[in-house]
């Protein structure tokens, strides 16, 4: 028997597979495909203080081995999430979840984290300072080490739950930002968010996405994510939730060898709603193949 269990800041996961925020809604849709209780945890849709419609459509553009999205943080707002979305998810999912919080100001981040702090279902708060699809917020906090540290420090004041800062790859030096977050008290790092990209329709001669640019994700970005996780693992002593183009159990093993303590699966869920299920089922097979007894033991093994 192989051991798939991992741990994130005291939170024990049966396996390291977590659907990534924004690709799994609040879990309800996937419960119509399979029993989602098998998932290690779930990272919920990015949530802001107020309800948001998000960006105009088209919001999606296909790419080779991936897609660009420019949803723009559409969500029903923190109160709705706590009152309706999480209780609804409790009907299909009996483990702790990861709440994903976004904001346009320090106060908004604090407000949302303070509220979600009281929610028992939430085991970890993932703080998104890296959304490429909203102006005057999101990524603006994640591209500057000083800002990233300040958000981290302020959020730590309003919650006792573990805080994982979700970082953007759209920076010159991600290591510096990860370290700043660690120094400011972050319990972990989530990385990477999407890469800023675009597509142009040769028929109309205009960008496909209404907002022109969007976040590129999918298997094409896996090597970039892996490289950044490898670099950040060398620099920090807090756990990393790795993500970026993960599409197979082998990718999960690679990402954990680079330094991830758990792995989120994003774009793959949209292409194949059973992606997480299939990866979890294939993990023991791949572990046997690569002579791995326990996933915990391979974290950072490539260093």
């Amino acid at each position, binding site marked *: 028997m192989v051991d798939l269990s991992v741990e994130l800041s005291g939170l024990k996961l049966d396996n390291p597979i977590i659907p990534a925020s*924004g690709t799994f*809604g609040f879990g309800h*849709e996937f419960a119509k*495909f399979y029993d989602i209780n098998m998932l290690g945890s779930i990272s919920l849709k990015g949530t802001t203080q107020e309800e948001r419609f*998000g960006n105009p459509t088209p*919001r*999606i553009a296909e790419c080779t081995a991936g897609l660009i*999205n420019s949803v723009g943080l559409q969500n029903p707002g923190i109160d709705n999430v706590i009152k309706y979305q999480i209780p609804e998810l409790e009907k299909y999912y009996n483990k702790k979840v990861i709440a994903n919080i976004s904001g346009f100001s320090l106060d908004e981040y604090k407000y949302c984290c303070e509220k979600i702090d009281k929610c028992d279902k939430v085991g970890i708060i993932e703080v998104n300072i890296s959304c490429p699809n909203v102006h005057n917020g999101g990524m603006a906090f994640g591209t500057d080490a000083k800002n990233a540290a300040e958000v981290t420090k302020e959020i730590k004041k309003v919650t006792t739950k573990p805080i994982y800062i979700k970082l953007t790859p759209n920076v010159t030096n991600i290591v510096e930002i990860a370290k700043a977050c660690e120094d400011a008290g972050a319990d972990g790092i989530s990385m990477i968010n999407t890469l800023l990209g675009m597509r142009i329709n040769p028929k109309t001669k205009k960008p496909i996405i209404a907002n022109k640019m969007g976040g590129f994700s*999918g298997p094409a970005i896996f090597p970039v994510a892996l490289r950044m996780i490898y670099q950040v693992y060398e620099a920090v002593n807090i756990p990393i939730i790795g993500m970026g183009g993960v599409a197979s159990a082998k990718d999960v093993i690679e990402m954990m060898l680079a330094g991830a303590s758990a792995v989120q699966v994003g774009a793959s869920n949209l292409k194949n709603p059973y992606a997480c299920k299939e990866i979890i089922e294939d993990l023991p097979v791949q572990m046997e193949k690569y002579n791995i007894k326990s996933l915990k033991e391979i974290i950072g093994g490539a260093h």
Partner: protein
Amino acid sequence: MYKRDCYEVKSNKNIANLVYEMVLEGPTTYITAPGQFINIEIDGFYLRRPISICEYDENTIKIIYKVVGEGTEVLAKLESGAKLDVLTGLGNGFKTIKCGEKPLLIGGGVGTPPMYQLCKNLINEGKEVTVVLGFNSKNDVFYEEEFKKLGAKVYITTADGSYGTKGFVTDVIKDLNDYTYFYACGPEPMLKAVYDNTNTTGELSFEERMGCGFGACMGCSCKTKYGNKRICVDGPVLKKEEIIW
């Protein structure tokens, strides 16, 4: 509930200019209403292609699609025996319960296919169905005879006047007065014109670029009078009274 299954292509034929009719064999138990769609994985492409269901029975699904890009180009080349990974049970579909005795069905181009199963169901329910189909030109016209065979009264319009009434579906609709409800599917400018030129309530089926097709990614959202909706799960069919143009 949603379901993914493997389907076998039974036939795939060109029925009009760039328009193909494909019959797939596989489970259909998760399809619950006309106007729903399936989401097809195509070799070499990252995202699935959402295509409306034209007709279905216990073990086959018929779709009609137009070659509009590289994905549908590959689809058009598939031969009988090819296997496809398909999600079914997607979308809300049309409701036939409140349509009265004389429903009007309006299809524009490849917005026509979902009207076929709907027409079949309505005629089985004993309704007197009128169908108005709009195309660009004579070469684009398809399914006129098929709708007639079901027992519907059929009008065809072409934008260039090469077949049927010259003009748009609204040029026919404006002279029709005794329908009790309408159903429409087609390009958005047509839907808007239908909305403005119909004197009953009805249901309109929309199209949008989708990521997943089952409600997870929020890629295809729209605003309605009843709040934000996702075209893929809360639609593609919206009620006339909830639409904001």
